[in-house]
């Protein structure tokens, strides 16, 4: 094994990079061992304001205390780190603190690149390799089997065998989320906020995971505003990378009277936010609910809240575990109870806000207590009894 300098340090002459670790290691103070953690993001890439940015936040900002600028890492200030932590995690114990960790992020251009990219990180000698997104499941599986001594974290999927049945490997930790539970709460809020009694949902491609968002969302709306659920307009854009398509879909929903729209559509979702922003500017009273990350910064005036999916927390936790030597394989499922999903601070004002938030909080407790079983699919939804 060998230790390499930080990936983008320009001060390091190329020659040094190939130095064997034997020389480099004695120079290291044995205690504060720096752990290298590699992350392969899926096709959405850096800067999606959503899924991948959440993962990058967990690794770069939280675990390593760094930010990525112009192709290199610089230290992030404590304020910046603090600002990146959503309120539901501020009281986390122990609090989020940067660890001696060096991130190494690789972006992928196509599905067939996942596997070599993961392998490249393993070859670079990282201590933990993270695959972000269910698209990477087959690749993580293969690379983990080929490198039994390396540790892996698979986010957003469990390992699936050839028949697509879940199984586990001794060197892979997987984290999945109960998106339906978070979606349930934002759905409940949407039902309470909607004045027109019409709410919308915009999905990307019609894949099961997005259906899970829809089911939870519908259940939430049904709980607080049963009428709105029957008229709920759910549209799929057919893509995750076409902002304009998302915008057009949202415009259509707004024209048809929707005043709260929840989007789970990758880049298309940014188009949804755009459409709502423009409608607001034109004098309409409309809101959008973000997804994965707190998307309030994209358009503060219209983002009601965001359904948080704490990939950041999952990655941070795994990184910290690694730094503390506690990293263990296994399947982790994060729901409301575990703080793995939730919703972001509601920063916009609307009549009856306090009351509405109270109701949503009450629902949160009922989900956590197990009183409410949030449906995760269309079938479960049909048998779901809303109890306000």
């Amino acid at each position, binding site marked *: 094994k060998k230790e390499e300098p930080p990936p983008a340090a320009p001060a390091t002459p190329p020659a040094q990079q190939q130095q064997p670790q034997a020389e480099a290691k004695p120079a290291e103070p044995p205690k504060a061992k720096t752990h290298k953690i590699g992350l392969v993001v899926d096709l959405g890439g850096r800067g999606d304001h959503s899924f991948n940015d959440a993962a990058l936040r967990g690794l770069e900002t939280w675990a390593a205390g760094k930010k990525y600028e112009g192709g290199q890492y610089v230290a992030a200030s404590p304020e910046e780190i603090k600002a990146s932590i959503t309120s539901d995690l501020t009281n986390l114990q122990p609090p989020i603190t940067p660890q001696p960790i060096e991130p190494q992020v690789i972006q992928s251009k196509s599905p067939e690149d996942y596997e070599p990219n993961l392998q490249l990180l393993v070859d670079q000698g990282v201590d933990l390799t993270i695959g972000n997104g269910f698209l990477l499941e087959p690749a993580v599986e293969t690379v983990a089997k080929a490198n039994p001594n390396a540790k892996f974290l698979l986010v957003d999927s469990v390992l699936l065998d050839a028949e697509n049945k879940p199984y586990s490997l001794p060197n892979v930790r997987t984290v999945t989320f109960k998106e339906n539970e978070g979606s349930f709460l934002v759905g409940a809020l949407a039902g309470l906020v909607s004045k027109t009694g019409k709410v919308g949902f915009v999905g990307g*491609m019609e894949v099961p995971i997005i259906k899970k968002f829809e089911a939870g969302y519908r259940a939430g709306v049904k709980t607080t505003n049963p009428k709105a659920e029957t008229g709920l307009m759910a549209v799929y854009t057919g893509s995750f990378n076409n902002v304009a398509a998302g915008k057009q879909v949202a415009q259509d929903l707004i024209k048809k009277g929707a005043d709260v729209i929840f989007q789970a559509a990758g880049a298309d979702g940014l188009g949804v936010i755009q459409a709502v922003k423009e409608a607001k500017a034109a004098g309409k009273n409309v809101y959008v609910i973000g997804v994965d990350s707190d998307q309030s910064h994209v358009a503060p005036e219209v983002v009601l809240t965001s359904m948080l999916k704490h990939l950041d927390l999952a990655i941070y936790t795994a990184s910290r575990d690694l730094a503390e030597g506690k990293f263990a394989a296994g399947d982790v499922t994060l729901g409301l109870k575990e703080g793995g999903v939730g919703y972001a601070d509601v920063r916009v004002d609307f009549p009856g806000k306090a009351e509405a938030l109270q109701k949503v909080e009450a629902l949160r407790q009922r989900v956590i207590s197990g009183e409410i079983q949030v449906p995760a699919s269309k079938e479960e939804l049909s048998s779901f009894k809303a109890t306000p």
Partner: protein
Amino acid sequence: MSERLRSAVPSILSVLLALVVCWVAIALTRDLSTAAEAYLQMLYGGIGQIPKYLETGSGALLARPLGESAGKAALLILTGLSVAVAFKAGLFNIGAQGQMVVGALASAVVGAQIALPSVVHIPLAILAAAVTGAAWALIAAALKLWRGVHEVISTIMLNWVAVSLVDNWLAVGPLRAVASGGHSVAGTAEIHPTAQFPRLLADISRLNLGFPVALAVALFVWLWLTRTRRGFETQAAGLGPDAARAAGISVKQRAAEAMALSGALAGMAGAVLVLGTEYRYPGSLAAPYGFDGIAISLIGNNNPLGVTITAIFFGILRAGGTRMQLLGVHKSFPELIQGLALLFVAGRLVWLTLLRKRKSQPASTEVPRA
């Protein structure tokens, strides 16, 4: 031979110029040493970490990158040949992407839905991809030959139709893989192990049957084009349709054949992807290999040997380009080099004029137009 070498000069110069331009681009956005290091890393990523290998003697350090390069090269060889074969018949096939999509899907379906011994399963899956790709391309050929619809337009349309139908319907609808417990999986069901290309170096590397298959296909295309009567007729039909017709060659038939072969090659690229590494249709083909094929074909002078060399070169750049990210250099460089190289090749006549020394080498040996 020297004649052929001379005709490759503009392409070689174009690629070199593109490499220089991109090097300058890295140097400008970062700094000189990063630029130098980035190219070195790209090379390591493409052909193996030779220094480290010499040090450690671990074969995987060479085999792995080479396997990746070979995988990319196989795809580029096939799509490049696809475009080149159509060119030879005077047709511009912009539809390799769509043909690859339908071919990939077909091989994924055959690989997953049928259980057969490996010796039959693999050829059958490849055949399915080739036939589907050919059929898709023949739509464009039919429109061209019977209705005069320019193949550039029809193949662009067919690309969209293929992607819409496959990615937004079949791959997320009837052919979608289902996971127990509501888990999400991308794409279609996994193919049977019997349909998977064997790995040539066991588990060290992803080097698989795809690369030798692509080379064999390139050899076949070369033989067909330069050694057989049919290939000769096809080239004549492409270069001079009127003269070819007067010589008793059925120009339409040769064009349709070439287009079918072109589609079959693109379809096989899809099969190489599915059977070689993905083991399923992956939901969508994010990389535009079909469009890359255009660049590869033109840079490779539309000739099977040139295409193969170009494809291997860019396969190395593509596979190695990922390593540039270790330095924080952008992931788009291999594509940029390829695009610029094509642009410079499009200015072929500029090169020839700059280089013209021999008068008997007419300047008008250009890409045939349809």
